[in-house]
């Protein structure tokens, strides 16, 4: 039994659906669900409404507290209903869809790079990871700290960097550890002032708590840490941030912008006659899982 309809994150015509279409079996129809808000409920609703179809979802991993090494396969996505876990599909092993597009192996194949170009790109990517490691640790700390609070504040900051003002990134000089610490404190104070949640009754203590998390996560994001070493930043860092962090190098490689780079990789994927799902072990595994998925009764 194969999945008939696979729901994914992202907008119609977006990166998610265009990439996934080249990975999954042809018999599977893909539908973008837009925002991840209420993703699980929307799948459950569709399963109820369209009995007989095999329906599953695929969502981003986002930031979490698990820094164990990648297994190169998607994780099972289970959702608790009446104290029972229900399979909804899978969670990407990497933070978001861009993490796959910027993978050096994908870039090499999609852009048909020569070896020296591939090496230059690999270095640019690693430099970017190094540049954003403290900022990434701060973003992870925010995500972990606010995970259970009712209104999650943004786990990023900086200037709007795309045409639609939906992506933000700090100035390069504000990416250092000290800048990130002070920004975290500021975000906690602002959040407590605006929302006044009972969980933050003592802002000073909360500032100290989030800095503790930040200080715990930070070493894992440094070059020798679990979230960085062995190219693990491709799994744990935000792909969009890694992309934006190497924008100057991308320009020197003749890509006018990170968006332009992404679009060219996507075009390479869409045009190649190769079996794209073989490019990464996780893609191959996802394809197998989708082809053999058994619907829960």
């Amino acid at each position: 039994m194969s999945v008939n309809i696979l729901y994914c994150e992202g907008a119609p015509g977006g990166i998610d659906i265009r990439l996934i279409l080249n990975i999954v079996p042809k018999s599977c129809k893909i539908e973008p669900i837009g925002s991840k808000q209420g993703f699980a409920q929307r799948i459950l609703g569709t399963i109820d409404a369209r009995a007989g179809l095999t329906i599953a979802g695929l969502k981003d991993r986002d930031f979490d507290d698990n820094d164990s090494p990648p297994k190169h396969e998607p994780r099972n996505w289970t959702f608790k209903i009446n104290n029972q876990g229900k399979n909804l599909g899978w969670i990407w092993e990497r933070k978001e869809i861009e993490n796959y597009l910027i993978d050096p192996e994908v870039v090499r194949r999609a852009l048909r790079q020569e070896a020296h170009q591939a090496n230059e790109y690999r270095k640019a990517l690693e430099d970017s990871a190094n540049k954003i490691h403290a900022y990434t640790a701060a973003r992870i700390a925010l995500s972990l700290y606010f995970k259970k609070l009712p209104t999650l504040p943004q786990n990023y900051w900086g200037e709007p960097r795309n045409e639609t003002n939906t992506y933000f990134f700090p100035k390069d000089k504000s990416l250092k550890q000290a800048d990130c610490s002070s920004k975290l404190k500021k975000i906690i104070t602002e959040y407590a002032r605006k929302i006044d949640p009972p969980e933050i009754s003592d802002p000073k203590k909360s500032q100290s708590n989030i800095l503790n998390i930040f200080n715990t996560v930070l070493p894992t994001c440094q070059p020798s840490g679990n979230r960085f070493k062995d190219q693990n930043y491709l799994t744990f860092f935000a792909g969009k941030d890694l992309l934006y962090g190497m924008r100057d190098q991308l320009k020197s490689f003749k890509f006018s912008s990170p968006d332009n780079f992404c679009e060219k990789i996507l075009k390479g994927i869409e045009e190649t006659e190769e079996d794209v799902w073989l490019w990464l072990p996780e893609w191959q595994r996802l394809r197998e899982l989708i082809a053999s998925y058994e619907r829960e009764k």
Partner: protein
Amino acid sequence: MKVKSILIKNFKRFDHLEISFEDQTLKSISNRFLVLGDNGTGKTTLLQAIALPLALATRQITRITDFDWVGFLPGRYQRWGSPYIELEVLFSPEEIQTTQELAQKWSKIQPASPFIKPGESQQVRLILDGESCRANSDAEYFQFCGRYYASKLLNTDPKIRSEFAKLPGIFWFDQFRNLGSNSLPEENVSTSDRDNSISSRLSFALGVSRLRKYLNGWQLVRLTRSYPIDYLMQLENLYKKIFPERSFAGVELMPGINAPTSEDYYFLINDGHRTYDIVEMSAGEQSVFPILYEFIRQQIAYSVVLIDEIDLNLHPPAAQSLASQLFKINSTCQFIFTTHSEAVSNVIGKNNIYRLPGGSLCL
């Protein structure tokens, strides 16, 4: 060749319409461009407006009245005044060079005709003004004629066949396509030859018979290894890209035939369980097969390919798959197509979509 932009005035339902086919993120011409719109907003008319001047310039037709697209009435062409269509068309160096070489060969066997060497402009403005079609110069206008030269030379030199894959062309597949609608008997024949073939639209049986002749001929060529290129394998590879579980299963003699010709054999497809003849194909397969078949038979590349209702009769995953496979069918072509299918529109990037005004937004 690829269409960079179009300006339409006074053509059927359009007073004035301008569309750019450039991808604003990639800063290049879109190879896969989707036109959306409600019923009656002019999707098919837009495709016709692209096809008509290109068909004239490539000499697929010599008069407006030859334009063969169901739903186009030559008698009403000037109903709202004199139509004006302007296309900005880009050519690649390979197309330009091959066209010039073939023009040179053609001139040698036509010494009585004045020779105009096709130009080498990478961007040409093509204008259809009323009944008259022109470019900035004759040389630029003749840049469109590569397939015309090749089809003429093919009569005396079969080796020319391989040159078609380097030449610009215009091909369209309307919403009435089926196995019987393979309208051209040879690669881009001239109008006088074409007159005989137009009737194929009127007869499904005639069209299928012609299709069998080609397919079974290719099968014979494969068996006898009498030609270096296996067209049947090329077609099967394309077909499997869209319908992965199917394969070609050879031929089967029709009952009651004593002295069979190539048209007297069924051409069989295997669906993994049983075989069936092309006439027994599903409606969805019948809407895709003519496109794939023409790609192989006419060696379509470097061409503008227009497909009306790309999802015609297709199950949503197959429609989605077809839209995604267009690049892989031939990445040198520019595909411009329409749909009402959300499954299709979902997989096309927003920089490669134009929504015709009017109607209600639901796609």
